[in-house]
Structure formats: C-alpha cells, structure tokens
C-alpha cells in the first residue's frame, strides 16, 4: 500500500559536535575524533528527536531514512517504523553518506526532506537535490550561516507536520552558505554563497488582523525590484550581488542572473556575468556605478559573505552613497533586532559602511537600519 505522505529524514550524527567544546564545526575525521575525546555529545540526534516528536505517527505517513545514527535511531525512538535505505559504517559517517542519502530520497520522491545538521550538511544536501525537493533544516550545528534552518527544533517539527498535512503550499528560496571551517578555526571567516534550497514557508496565523499584512516574500521581492528598476538611470552601471531578492531585479528586466555570482547590468542589459573583483574594477573605470546587495544567509551580512567579489576596493570606488541595499521586511525581522553586518576585509571600508543605511523594502518604501562591522 502506497503511503500518502513520505518524510525523508537525514541526521548528520557529527554535526554540532565541535561547537560545545570550542572547536568550530565538525568536518573532518580528525576534528570529530578530537571533539569526542573532549567529551562532546552529538547534538544533532537530540535535536532531531525534539523535532520528530512534534509529528504524530500515522498509518499513511512513511518515514524514509538511513540506518542507525543517520536517522533510523531517531525515527524509532519517536515511535515510527521507518523505511530504511542505504548503508553506512557506524561511527564513521561522511559527507558522501549525506549526499547519497539525499539523492536516494529525491529518487524516492519524498514530500519533504528533514535534515539535522549545520552548514556542511546543508551544502551536502544541496549538492544532491538542488532545488528539486522541499527541504527543511533542524538546527544542530554551531553558528549557522545558511538560511535553510528553522529557528529551533520544535518549530522545525511543527512546520514539517503542517507540510505533511498539506497545510503549507508556499516555498521560498533560502541561501546555502559554504563556510571554510578550517579558516574559521584560524579566526578567518570566509563564506561563499553556494546555492539555494527550496524551503517551505508558513505564513503566520491570521490572528490579530486589524490592518492588512504586507505581501508575501515573493510579491515583496517583486515590489522591490519594481522600485530599483524604476530608479535605474541611463549611463550608470549596476553591480548586482547574489541573493533571492536581487534576482527579482534581473527577473524584472527579463535577464538571466547567475545563481550565486555577481552580475553587471546597464540600461536594461547584462554587461557582464559572474564577474570577479578585477573584472569589476575594469568595468568601473571612468563609469558611474551603483552596487545593489541584499543580506545573504541567516546572519544578515550585506558584504563579506557570499559576495566577496564586491571587494573593498570596488565599494570604495563606487562610494557609500551609491550602495543600494535591498531586503524584504521579513528578512529584516528575522534578524530579531540585530544589525546588518559588513565584513569586507578592510577595516576602513567596513567603518565607512557602518552606522545607518537605507534599505529598499518595497515600491517607494525604504527603511533605515543599523549596520555594524
């Protein structure tokens, strides 16, 4: 009998291992070993259980997962009889296992892929499924830069439950960030935008409606794009950074933006795609230009995470007054009052950007928000 709903579950057993004992991230067998020696306890299992407990076992719900510590243990402890696929070497699971598991679940056509892990896990999932499958992360790692995770395990479970009851039909694209963990351990944080995963988006309860709410994320991004495009001037170059909101701009111009790269637009046409710093500097020679960026990842960075091609030199050349930040109000509110962040690598440029900045949040709508460096 074919189950009505299939939930894919992947637990990265080593995720979140290092954080508590002061080691950043958990990639690499060495680090994992060291963490366990220091008494680290795998967080991801506990977090995954907290999430899965929110979902009622039911006859028409099938859980598809990997053996043992990669999911079956968690599923059983929550009262499910999971369908187990694949094979692992217990105690020595790798990124490849995660990728294989995800690919298998894509093949089996699960309705949602729930995974517990950190940035590395998100990247691995992305490599396997791209944006072909709805996914949702249960946060279990250290500081997470990717925006594909729910705020906490409980809400991850709740949201998954709603999806399985067909009560969620909206999805948004969320950035997957590639963090160089070795660099982080050496005190250098370097993040690249890796891609976008398709994450379900639940509107809040329609409670307390005394005034209409703002439009949904997609409509908001389109409104922002309408504003930016309507203000584009002849003779100016527009350096468009990566991000879902900036993509709405090129969509409006009916251009194809690169997924994770920086593109340059002028007078409604693509001038250059996926440029690096030197190409940018070349293009900027003797030209007036604006930079259009949006916060990438869950931490609110407008420079320094995923758009390093827009280097401090580029920013200094263009000038602060020509930096246009765009963001939906939803994204701003997800910062929970924390400021936007910049980390260009150049102290002076960072300080130039710091303070308060205007952010385009809709058509003829802006906010003024704090930027910290």
């Amino acid at each position, binding site marked *: 009998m074919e189950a009505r709903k299939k939930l894919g579950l992947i637990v990265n057993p080593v995720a979140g291992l290092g954080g508590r004992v002061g080691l950043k991230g958990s990639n690499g067998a060495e680090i994992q070993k060291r963490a366990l020696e220091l008494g680290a306890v795998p967080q991801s299992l506990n977090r995954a259980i907290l999430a899965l407990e929110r979902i009622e076992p039911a006859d028409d719900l099938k859980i598809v997962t990997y053996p043992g510590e990669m999911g079956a243990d968690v599923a059983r402890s929550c009262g499910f009889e999971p369908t187990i696929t694949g094979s692992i070497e217990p105690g020595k699971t790798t990124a490849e296992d995660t990728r294989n598991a995800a690919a298998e679940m894509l093949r089996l056509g699960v309705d949602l892929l729930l995974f517990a892990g950190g940035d590395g896990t998100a990247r691995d999932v992305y490599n396997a499924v791209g944006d072909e499958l709805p996914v949702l992360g249960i946060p279990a790692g250290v500081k997470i830069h990717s925006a594909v995770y729910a705020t906490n395990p409980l809400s991850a479970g709740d949201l998954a439950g709603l999806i399985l009851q067909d009560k969620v039909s909206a999805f948004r694209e969320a950035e997957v960030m590639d963090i160089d963990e070795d660099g982080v351990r050496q005190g250098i944080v370097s993040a690249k935008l890796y891609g976008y995963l398709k994450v379900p988006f639940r509107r809040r309860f329609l409670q307390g409606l005394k*005034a209409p709410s703002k439009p949904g994320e997609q409509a908001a991004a389109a409104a922002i794009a309408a504003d930016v495009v309507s203000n584009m001037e002849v003779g100016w170059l527009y350096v468009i950074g990566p991000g879902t909101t900036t993509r709405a701009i090129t969509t409006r111009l009916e251009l194809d933006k690169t997924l994770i790269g920086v593109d340059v637009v002028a007078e409604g046409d693509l001038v250059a795609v996926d440029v690096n710093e030197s190409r940018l500097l070349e293009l900027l020679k003797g030209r007036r230009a604006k930079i259009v960026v949006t916060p990438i990842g869950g931490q609110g960075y407008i420079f320094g995470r995923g758009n390093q091609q827009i280097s401090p030199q580029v920013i200094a050349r263009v000038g602060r007054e020509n930096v246009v930040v765009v963001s939906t109000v939803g994204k701003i509110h997800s910062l929970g009052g924390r400021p936007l962040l910049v980390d260009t690598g150049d102290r002076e440029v960072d300080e130039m950007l710091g303070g308060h900045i205007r952010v385009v949040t809709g058509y003829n709508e*802006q906010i*003024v928000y704090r930027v910290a460096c």
Partner: protein
Amino acid sequence: MAQQDISKHRFTDGKLNLRRFHQARWDEPVIFELSCEGQRGILVPEVEQGIQDEVGDVLATLPDAMRRKEPPRLPELAQPQVLRHYVRMSQENLGADLNVEIGQGTCTMKYSPKINEQLAGTPRMADLHPLQDEETVQGVLEIMYRFEQILKEISGMDRFTLQPGAGSAAIYANASIIRAYHESRGEAGQRDEIITTIFSHPSNAACAQTAGFKVITLYPDEDGYPDIDALKAAVSERTAALLITNPEDTGIFNPRIDEFVRVVHEAGGLCSYDQANANGILGITRAREAGFDLCHFNLHKTFSSPHGCGGPGCGASGVTEELARFLPVPTVEFDGEKYYLDYDRPDSVGKLRPFYGYVPVVLRAYAWVMSLGAEGLREVADISVLNNNYLLNKMVQIPGCSAPYAPGKHRIEQVRYSWEELAAETGVHSEELGVRAADFGIHYWTSHHPYVVPEPVTLEPTETPSKEDLDEYVTVMAHVAEEARTDPELVKTAPHNSTVHTVDHAPLDDPSQWAMTWRAYLKRIGK
C-alpha cells in the same frame, strides 16, 4: 439540616477559581437559510390614493432596461425572527461591555459611558439633516465648536477639523495637508519622502503612500527607542514630513521627541503627531511643546466613543495656525453670537467626506470630557499608566513572558510583551495562547504584521478596569501559560468554549474556493 456555604466552592486554596466561561453558541444559520417566502419584517407606508390617481404607474416612466426584472433575492423573515437572529449574533461577541477588554492593545478599549449613548441617540442629535439652515442646528454646531476648543487645549494646536472618519483618515488628512503645504512653496516635487517608525501605527506609512509619498521607516535602537541617528540618516532635502506615534505601540515614550522634531524641521520638513496613544499622557505632555505642526486623536479610543465592531469612529486632526489654511472645509466658527459653517478657505485641501464627520461620536467625546474636566483627564492618564505598570509587573512574573526593550524602565499606557521564551520551551505560539485565553472570556491581540517582537501580545488596560479585572486577566494568562507546559494539546486545540472553533483559512486564500457572499458560496458548493 444546615444550609451549605456554597460560596466556598468558588475558591481553591484561597484563590478565586477561573470562570467556567462559555460563550453563547447558537449554531445560528446564515439568515438566508431562515427565509420563508411571503414573510415580511416591516411594511412600508402606502402611497395615498390621491397621489396614485394622479401619477399612475410610475415605473412605466422608466425605460425597460432600467426596470429591475428579477427581485433581489433577499431573505424574507417576519420581524420577531429578524430580531431574534440578530440578538443571538450579538451574544456571540466579546465586547468591552462584557469582558475585561484589555487584550486589544493600541485600541484603547475603555468603558463607553451609557449616558453618552443616550445623548447621542436623542432626536436632537440623531434626526438632524446636515444641510438644515444653520439657525436650526446651533446646538450641534456649538458642541462641535466647544469640542474643538477642548482639543486645542489638550494638544496645544491652533485649529482642528473633526471631519476625518477615524484615525487613519485623520493621518491621511494630515498627509494631504502636508502635501498642500509643500505644493504652496513649490517644493512638492522635491519633497516626496515621509519618515515614520516601525512601531508607529502602520497607517502612518500606508496613508502617506496613499497621498503619493515614498515612505522611509526607521527601526529602533537596541533598547527599543526610536533611533535619532537613524532619523538623521533618513532626512534630506527630500523630506516632506515625519509621521510618528508617541508613545509607540510598545508603550515606550520617546524622550527625545522634540529633538526628532528639530532634526526634521531643520531639513525643511513638517512633523505630525499620531496621538492614537494619547490616553496615558493627557494633561502631561502636548504636541505643541514638542514642536509638532500637526497631530491627530482617535475619538473612539482616548475619548471613549464605542468601537462599534469597527466604526464609526472619528479622527480629529489638529494643526498650527500656519497650516490652518489647508484644513478641509467647512470649519465651525463662532462670531460672538452664532455658530456657522465656514467654507471660505481657498487653500483648503477640500472635502475628505460628505458633510462634517461622525458628529455623534464628537458629541460622546464632548460629554466624556465634560464629565471629567482637567483634573479628571489627568486622572485618566495617571490611572491608565498605573494600571499598565501594575499589569506589567505581574505579567513579567509569569515564567516565559517578557517585556522587551527599555530595560529597567516603566511604560506609559500599553506594553508589547513577548512569549518567546515560552514558545522556545514548549513550541506553543503566542497566537495559540490567545486562542486558549478566549476559553476564559478574554481577548488577546498580538501585534501588527509582520511581527518585529517575536511571539507578541500587546495589552492596554486603560483607566477603566478595576484592580480585580487586571488580576483576573493575569490569572488567565498565567494559567494558559502553565497549560502550554503541562497540557499543550489542550492549548493547541482551543478554543473549546467559544462560539465556534478555529476557522480553516485555506479556502479564504484560494481564489477557486473563497466566497464573500452567500450567493457566491452557494455557487461554490453547487447550489
């Protein structure tokens, strides 16, 4: 056999039990389902034979295409059935007359004195045509004039219009006046930006946009206060005005409000004070001294006129003398002997509505002020603030509840709380707590969307609840919060004691399923 002391069962361990509230549930069909062909609820006056004889068939004077062929398919009921149907529906609400209505923060749901209802309903208010000769309406004009003088004193502004239909309409009126002002100075094209804050009422942004302005919204500093540095980053030669609510919807008063005004004035903009939250500052601080050019009050909030399920209310807009020339027409004037309506205002923004506003609401507001006087209004402010801080003190003692921002400080007349801690601990959201609170006959409003404060609830007691009322509200909140820990299923499946259960919203958002009238609904379900 001795009589039992039945009152003791109302207490458990010395504490009063929660109410075993159950809202009226009539399972009342939609009125069309009660229709019975031929029944009449009222008969209309007949046309006299003398008229009929002279006129004949008047419908024959209409071209065929303009004569209605199919009668409208209105329901047909006799009078008692209509009355009963509506009275039953009236029971299926939680109004301020019934419940401890402090859960609708920002709405200022105070007691609406019944004497004012009586006065507003008398024929010498209710049966006046707005175009009657002025000598026959001196009384109502006098009320409007006197009330304007009262508002002038409360705010310090020079002139008021009572025309706007409610608060948002008043904000729009102010935006229109601001637009006219800049136009008169040839700067309308240049000054196309209006600044507001995220904790001001959303209508400040929406009405400014409607009037054609771009809107810049400032986010607060870390402590939740409006950020003067953000303002400085926002002003420019494009600034038309600042529209700001103070205290904001968090209940926090901006201590630098006059500085905000100065910054905007220096940039050449005007400042408009949204005084929807005036209840806690009556007689304490005014728009004038803070330097504002315009302000507005909600007469159905601060001034006690009832909310009527969503209106009618009244928005009173006040301006300085310099801007008075732009006020909508007519204004009410007094020449020493009589009151009259003045349309002689060539620079007026024109009419915002037919006639002069929701005048009975003005009457209620006037009567309310006249029952209190200056001392009484001051007491209103004092007690509404005392009630609010008393409530605050108790609410934050509930585990899982916090009042973000302004650490260590009090609030003015309302507070935006957060159940973030409780939600993280139990997975129960603020909305769900609110639904369960309704099982005890209590209202609950979270916040405007999208939420800035996570898991919010905004409470505004006003001056009219008693200490016992406040205690009851907190007891319910604490109880429901505890249930979130011990019996989350009960909370999540609430309401259990309301008129109906929670609505499945999916059809309401799906164009192929929604139905906004009964006829549309019948089409959907194939009838």
